[in-house]
């Protein structure tokens, strides 16, 4: 991983939020979200306050609102699910445009949408202001087992390599005139996944040998940071 590359969600800037230590940011996000999740649905003013806090942090971070808004699409399935709740939940019904909707369902859908949106925005802000390398160091400081952090480090490091490999395979398939359209094409796509596993596994073995050649003894040692 080139140190300056970052990842897809990272937004390069120099705000106080970017400079804040990653372990504090992760701990703050988890605490904040636990408070949000524990808040009863009916406490609307509290949710307004949470939104104001997040909005202030977004303003402080200097990450453009449009940049975050575009990446909120990850929340779509949750919103679809929340929209279904008033139709399936039980309880007293209210008439909305002539359709009987469950009142607790409506309240719960509103609450779920609000909480999930706050969660996605908070996580996006963390991802946008934190380099993966700092995030990993932060997790290590938060006493996440070092082996787990190491595995995560390898995943983050090779994410682009492996997804690029997958993309090249698709390009290769399509340049041969193949596009997957229905389940009859699954065997071809699955064979790509199989090939990807073999390549990933073998890359893992090569990386391990290269690490041994450089004196790796199974323990994580923080190298000199550039």
């Amino acid at each position: 991983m080139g140190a300056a590359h970052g990842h897809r969600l990272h937004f390069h800037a120099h705000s106080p939020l970017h400079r804040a230590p990653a372990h504090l940011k992760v701990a703050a996000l988890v605490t904040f979200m636990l408070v949000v999740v524990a808040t009863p649905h009916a406490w609307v003013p509290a949710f307004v306050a949470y939104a104001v806090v997040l909005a202030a942090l977004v303003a402080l971070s200097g990450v453009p609102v449009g940049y975050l808004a575009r990446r909120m699409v990850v929340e779509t399935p949750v919103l679809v699910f929340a929209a279904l709740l008033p139709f399936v939940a039980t309880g007293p019904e209210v008439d909305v445009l002539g359709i009987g909707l469950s009142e607790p369902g409506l309240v719960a859908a509103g609450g779920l949408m609000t909480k999930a949106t706050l969660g996605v925005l908070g996580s996006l802000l963390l991802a946008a202001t934190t380099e993966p390398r700092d995030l990993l160091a932060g997790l290590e400081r938060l006493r996440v087992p070092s082996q787990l952090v190491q595995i995560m480090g390898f995943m983050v490091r090779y994410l682009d390599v492996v997804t690029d490999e997958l993309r090249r395979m698709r390009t290769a398939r399509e340049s041969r005139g193949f596009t997957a359209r229905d389940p009859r094409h699954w065997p071809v796509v699955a064979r790509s996944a199989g090939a990807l596993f073999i390549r990933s596994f073998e890359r893992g073995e090569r990386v391990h040998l290269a690490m041994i050649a450089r004196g790796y003894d199974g323990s994580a040692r923080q190298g000199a940071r550039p």
Partner: protein
Amino acid sequence: MHVPDGFLDAPTSIATAGVAAVAVTIALRGARREVDDRIAPLAGLVATFVFATQMLNFPVAGGTSGHLMGGALAAVLVGPYTGLLCLTVVLAVQSLLFADGGITALGTNVVLMGVVTVVVGYLVFRAAQLVLPKRLSMVAPAAALGALVSVVLAAATFVGLYVVGGAVPIPLDTLLTAMVGVHVLIGIGEAVITFLVVASIVAVRPDLVHGARRVLDVRPLETRVSA
């Protein structure tokens, strides 16, 4: 779909996080036996593979498509302990770097899509292996069965968690029928894809598939001296 923040109440989220932490601790010990000191690079690359295959779209019909969850697949390919570590790391990275799945629901997601799918997938796979003929060609069908059962049981576990800590009053039987019904379909898709992927790997490199080790013929190196 990953469980978002606010779907289950705070005590349930914390409790599942505790369960997930215990499971990961056990997996960290067990993974040493599966891949010795190669664990960090190998599990890391396999986690990346799981992440990438979740991006691989399998077209269903009318423009919709599904993707693999990969719990049973990872368990069969690299063993249950390493598989669980891979799934955990994938879910953590998705939550922290891609805002997919709530951060307070990370424990829930690890329990549902990591622990349940990997453990159930592997147990069903091993059970099927005991019943089916001990042949290399039977590895993929056994893995497919594991995938199907793992997805359905993960959905049922979700309903169970929902009964304990759900935030919306949905009648239990409706929820159970809907979730299990939908996930039987998803599970069939998962089973077919798992079958195809495992079969394609077993055809080329059976030595890499953890679940195939017991049925792989040992072919010792023979040295012959010609007169």
